[in-house]
């Protein structure tokens, strides 16, 4: 803003904003701090914030349960797998709609968006029964397929809005210089499309990692990702605050870091380009 603002006002606003930001972030910070306490310190009254005996015993305890690494691995496979599979299907589709739009392109896009509006619980039973009969219940491949399908509309939309921004003139220029169709795609379009594809990938890994309807209803033990594993702390293990905090910290840390890098894409991806 161009207008001058008194330093005093700026300091007050800064203090207010930092206080509110701290309060909103506090539950995450508290979880992080508690994960370094012992179980006794975690429920001590009054609780201590920083001056306790920092140690890693909760992390060791959680990692010694052989199932934690397994669920972490499941989360990685499911979120990466569904995103990569989704991109393989979405890139050609978005590419075609952005560069060779037809009369019905807009309708197709809107229809794809409409599939995202279907409440998952409305199709829970058929999917559950189909998965049971096909032997896909509690398998990683089953979850990869379902998460790919529910995120496919978002992937296509995001890619479409990115591809649309690649100027058409650049293709004409390449053609004038005698570029063939394939070299046009590889040397001109692909390098310009890579940032958009990377952002789309990032957002979808985050969405798949945190998805908590299908991962909870379609898994039991074997293929359960972290969302389902953490849900098993619901009772009575959840009362072991240090272990709960350690498991939670490990489950959210990677995605929190990825998420901070993808703030802008988040707005674009989740509003389907309606707010930029």
């Amino acid at each position, binding site marked *: 803003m161009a207008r001058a603002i008194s330093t005093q006002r700026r300091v007050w*606003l*800064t203090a207010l904003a*930092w206080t509110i930001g701290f309060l909103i972030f506090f*539950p995450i910070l508290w979880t992080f701090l508690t994960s370094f306490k012992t179980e006794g310190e975690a*429920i001590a009254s009054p*609780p201590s914030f920083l001056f306790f005996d920092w140690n890693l015993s909760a992390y060791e305890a959680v990692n010694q349960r052989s199932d934690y690494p397994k669920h972490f691995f499941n989360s990685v496979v499911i979120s990466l797998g569904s995103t990569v599979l989704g991109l393989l299907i979405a890139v050609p589709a978005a590419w075609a709609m952005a560069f060779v739009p037809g009369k019905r392109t807009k309708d197709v896009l809107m229809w794809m968006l409409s599939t995202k509006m279907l409440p998952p619980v*409305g199709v829970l*039973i058929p999917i559950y029964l189909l998965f049971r009969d096909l032997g896909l219940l509690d398998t990683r491949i089953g979850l990869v397929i379902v998460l790919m399908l529910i995120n496919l509309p978002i992937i296509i939309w995001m890619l479409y809005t990115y591809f649309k921004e690649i100027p058409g003139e650049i293709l004409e220029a390449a053609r004038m210089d005698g570029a063939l169709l394939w070299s046009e795609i590889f040397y001109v379009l692909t390098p310009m499309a890579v940032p958009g594809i990377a952002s789309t990938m990032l957002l979808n890994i985050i969405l798949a990692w945190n998805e908590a309807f299908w991962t909870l209803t379609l898994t039991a033990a074997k293929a359960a990702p972290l969302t389902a594993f953490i849900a098993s702390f619901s009772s009575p293990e959840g009362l072991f605050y240090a272990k709960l905090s350690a498991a939670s910290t490990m489950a*959210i840390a990677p995605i929190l870091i990825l998420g901070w890098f993808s703030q802008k894409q988040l707005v674009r991806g989740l509003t389907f380009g309606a707010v930029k």
Partner: protein
Amino acid sequence: MISPAVILLLGWMIIPLSLTIYFSFLRYNLLDPGNETFTGFLNYRFFLTDPSFFAAITNTFVLVLGVLVITIIGGILLALLLDQPIFGQGIVRILVIAPFFVMPTVSALVWKNMFMNPVNGLFAHLASGLGLPAFDFLAHAPLASIIGIVAWQWLPFATLILLTALQSQDTEQHEAAEMDGASALSRFFYLTVPHLSRAITVVILIQTIFLLSVFAEILVTTNGGPGTASTNLTYLIYVQSLLQYDVGAGSAGGVIAIILANIVAIFLMRMIGKNLDA
């Protein structure tokens, strides 16, 4: 090149949807397989006259509305604050956005155990520090507690979108209005609010789609209870079909949920369709 995507999505939409509609007209219980018979609208009558259905619809409505009110008002205020020239704006933004990336089961459990627990929770410590009796949030105000947890998760989303919209606002207009003697309040209501109206609508519609399907937060905190005090439609259908094995009634509930979501979706599609220059 778009056909694989179209075929997949078409299959994903048509097959389960038609099965749900088909099951909703059957007497179909997983504990009694092979005895499926056509029952007409009996499942719908059963589901719609079940007292827990009325409770679930009310709870769904209260949950969606409560979270929307908190996140929209909170989001506007926060976005206005973050739009000011403050020191370390980037860091505050990172702090504010963080809850959105926490998986629902983690945030629900952390709030449930470490904050709302009546014995060892932080709120209980705070209350005893102030000499007040501890309050068992999830037992005595289950729905309000869940609204609080879900609002904490969605406040960042609303803030981020409204902030993005705010930053695209024309500052010259504001300067001109200021020179003409418009007060800060009237500038807010006559310039900022109209500018934000589109973003607010988008936030309302998108959040509604997700909030109608809140599930994990209820599953790990209250299991829909006590009684049906915090059961929403999604959770009721889950209980009906996967815990009580009544596929027929669950499917009828599913169809009702789809109809409800469609009403919201139609408005959302209109909004986005207008904006699309394909």
